C-alpha cells in the first residue's frame, strides 16, 4: 500500500511484516522512533512479538543470542554510543553464526557529544563479521530490512546483518513509501528455522572455547560465508524485484548515469541522493558524470566495484567517517582495488554537517580539473 511514512516507521513496518518474534530494545536518539512504533504494533495487537525492555544496548545484543538460539526471528535497533556499548557482543553474534538483524540509525560517536548523522558507529565495526547494507530512502528501508532476514538466514550465510540508515537525514524523513502486502512478504521470506536450538530434551553446547588448532578454521568459515553472501545479496535483490517489484542496482552496488560517465562520485547512504540530483542537473548541461552507491559495505564487492569504475577518468570517494590517523575507510579500500584510477578522497558530513548540492558540485569540478581543491567538505 502506498502512503507517506517516516523512515523509522518504514523500518518498524518491515519488522512487523517479517513476523519478527523477539525485540530486545533500548532507545537512543535517533533510532528511538523504531522501538516506539514496534511497541505500538505489539500493544495494538497488530504484531505477535515480545519486546524485552533491557537495561542497556549490551543487554539488547546479548538477549539476541538467547532469542535466536531458541529459534525466534529477532530484531533490535540502536545508534552511536549505544552501538558502541554493544560492541563486545557483535563478534559473538557473528562468531556463533546467529542471523540477528539490527537497524543502525547512524549517528556519530561522542565527544564532543553530537546526536547527528555520520557513519562512525557502524563503519568502525566493519571487522566484526556483520553484513552491512546502507539504505538511501525510506522505501529502501522497508525493502532492505525484509531482505536482511532473507540474506542473514540463508544457510550459505548464517551471519548477522545490520541495515544502516542515516540518523535524522533519513530516520526522521516522511516520504512516499509503497509498503508490500503481508502475503507478498510471507512468500518472499519463509518462517525462520534453526537446526541447533536451546532444547532441554536435546541439549547442546553453545559458545564453547575454540582452541588455537580450531579457531582459524572457524574464522575461515566466517570469511567463506561472507564471500557467499555476495551472491546471496544479489539473489535476494533480484528475487525481491521479481516478487515485489523493486530492486537496487545488483543489490551490492547501485549505478546511476554510469553508462558513459567519465567522472563519478562514490558513497553510501543518503549523500548519494543529493549526488544523483546534482549529476542529473550536470547531465542536462552535457557533463558525463555519474554516481556509484555502495549498498553492501560488508561483504565488500570488489569485482562489481572494479567493473563500475573501469571506464572512468576520475573517481571521488565521499566518506562520512574518518579513521583518525589514516583516511576515510571507504577511500582506503577503494584505493586498494583500483590502482590505475585517478582517485580523490573527501571527508564529508561528519556529525550532521549537511552535504549540499554545492559540495557535490565542487567535487565534480575537482574531478574535471584533475586537481583536488580540499579534502574536507566543511
Amino acid at each position, binding site marked *: 500500500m502506498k502512503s507517506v511514512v517516516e523512515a523509522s516507521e518504514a523500518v518498524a513496518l518491515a519488522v512487523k511484516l517479517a513476523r519478527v518474534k523477539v525485540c530486545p530494545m533500548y532507545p537512543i536518539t535517533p533510532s528511538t522512533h523504531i522501538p516506539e512504533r514496534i511497541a505500538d504494533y505489539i500493544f495494538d495487537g497488530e504484531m505477535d512479538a515480545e519486546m524485552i525492555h533491557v537495561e542497556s544496548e549490551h543487554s539488547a545484543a546479548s538477549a539476541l543470542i538467547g532469542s535466536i538460539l531458541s529459534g525466534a526471528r529477532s530484531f533490535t535497533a540502536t545508534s552511536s554510543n549505544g552501538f558502541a556499548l554493544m560492541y563486545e557482543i557483535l563478534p559473538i553474534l557473528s*562468531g*556463533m*553464526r*546467529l542471523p540477528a538483524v539490527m537497524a543502525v540509525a547512524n549517528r556519530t560517536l561522542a565527544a564532543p557529544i553530537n546526536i547527528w548523522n555520520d557513519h562512525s558507529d557502524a563503519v568502525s565495526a566493519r571487522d566484526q563479521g556483520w553484513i552491512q547494507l546502507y539504505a538511501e530512502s525510506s522505501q529502501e528501508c522497508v525493502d532492505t530490512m525484509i531482505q536482511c532476514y532473507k540474506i542473514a538466514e540463508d544457510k550459505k550465510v*548464517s551471519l548477522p546483518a545490520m541495515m544502516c540508515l542515516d540518523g535524522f537525514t533519513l530516520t526522521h524523513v516522511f516520504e512516499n513509501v509503497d509498503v508490500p502486502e503481508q502475503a507478498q512478504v510471507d512468500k518472499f521470506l519463509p518462517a525462520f528455522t534453526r537446526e*541447533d536450538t536451546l532444547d532441554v530434551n536435546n*541439549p*547442546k*553446547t*553453545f*559458545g*564453547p572455547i*575454540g*582452541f588455537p*588448532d*580450531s579457531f582459524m*578454521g*572457524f574464522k575461515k*568459515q566466517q570469511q567463506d560465508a561472507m564471500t557467499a553472501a555476495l551472491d546471496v545479496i544479489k539473489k535476494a535483490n533480484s528475487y525481491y524485484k521479481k516478487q515485489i517489484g523493486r530492486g537496487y542496482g545488483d543489490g551490492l552496488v547501485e549505478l546511476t548515469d554510469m553508462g558513459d560517465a567519465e567522472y563519478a562520485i562514490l558513497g553510501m547512504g543518503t549523500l548519494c541522493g543529493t549526488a544523483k540530483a546534482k549529476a542529473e542537473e550536470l547531465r542536462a548541461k552535457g557533463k558525463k558524470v555519474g554516481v556509484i552507491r555502495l549498498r553492501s559495505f560488508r561483504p565488500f564487492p570488489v569485482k562489481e566495484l572494479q567493473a563500475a569504475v573501469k571506464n572512468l577518468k576520475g573517481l571521488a570517494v565521499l566518506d562520512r567517517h574518518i579513521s583518525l590517523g589514516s583516511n576515510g575507510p571507504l577511500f582506503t579500500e577503494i584505493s586498494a582495488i583500483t590502482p590505475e584510477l585517478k582517485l580523490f578522497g573527501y571527508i564529508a558530513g561528519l556529525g550532521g554537517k549537511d552535504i549540499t548540492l554545492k559540495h557535490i558540485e565542487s567535487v565534480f569540478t575537482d574531478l574535471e580539473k584533475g586537481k583536488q581543491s580540499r579534502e574536507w567538505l566543511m
Partner: protein
Amino acid sequence: MTKVQRKETVGDIKAQQIELNLGAVIKKPGSSMDYHTGSWRTFRPVIIQEKCIKCSTCWRVCPDAAIFVDKKGRYNVNYDYCKGCLTCVKECPVDAINKELEEK
C-alpha cells in the same frame, strides 16, 4: 562438516578429530565427561569415613562436582575428575579429609 586433526597431545586431550560445526556448536551433550582432569593433582583428598558426619560441605564446595554420595550414603571423591584443589580439605568442619601426596 569440515574437521581439523588435532596433532599434538595437550595434557589429557588426545589426538582427535574436532568437528568445525557451524558457530562451534557442540552437538553431543556432556562431552567434557571424556576429559579426565584427575591427572592434574599433586595432592589427593582422602575422606576418612569414620570421622565424616555427612554434613555435605565437601559436596557443596567442590568446584568440579567431583564429590559423590554412594548407595550407602557415604561421601566419596571421584578421582577421574578431582583436580586436587583441596578446598574440601580446608572446609571440612570435622577435619575428616586428609591430603596425601599423589603417587605418579
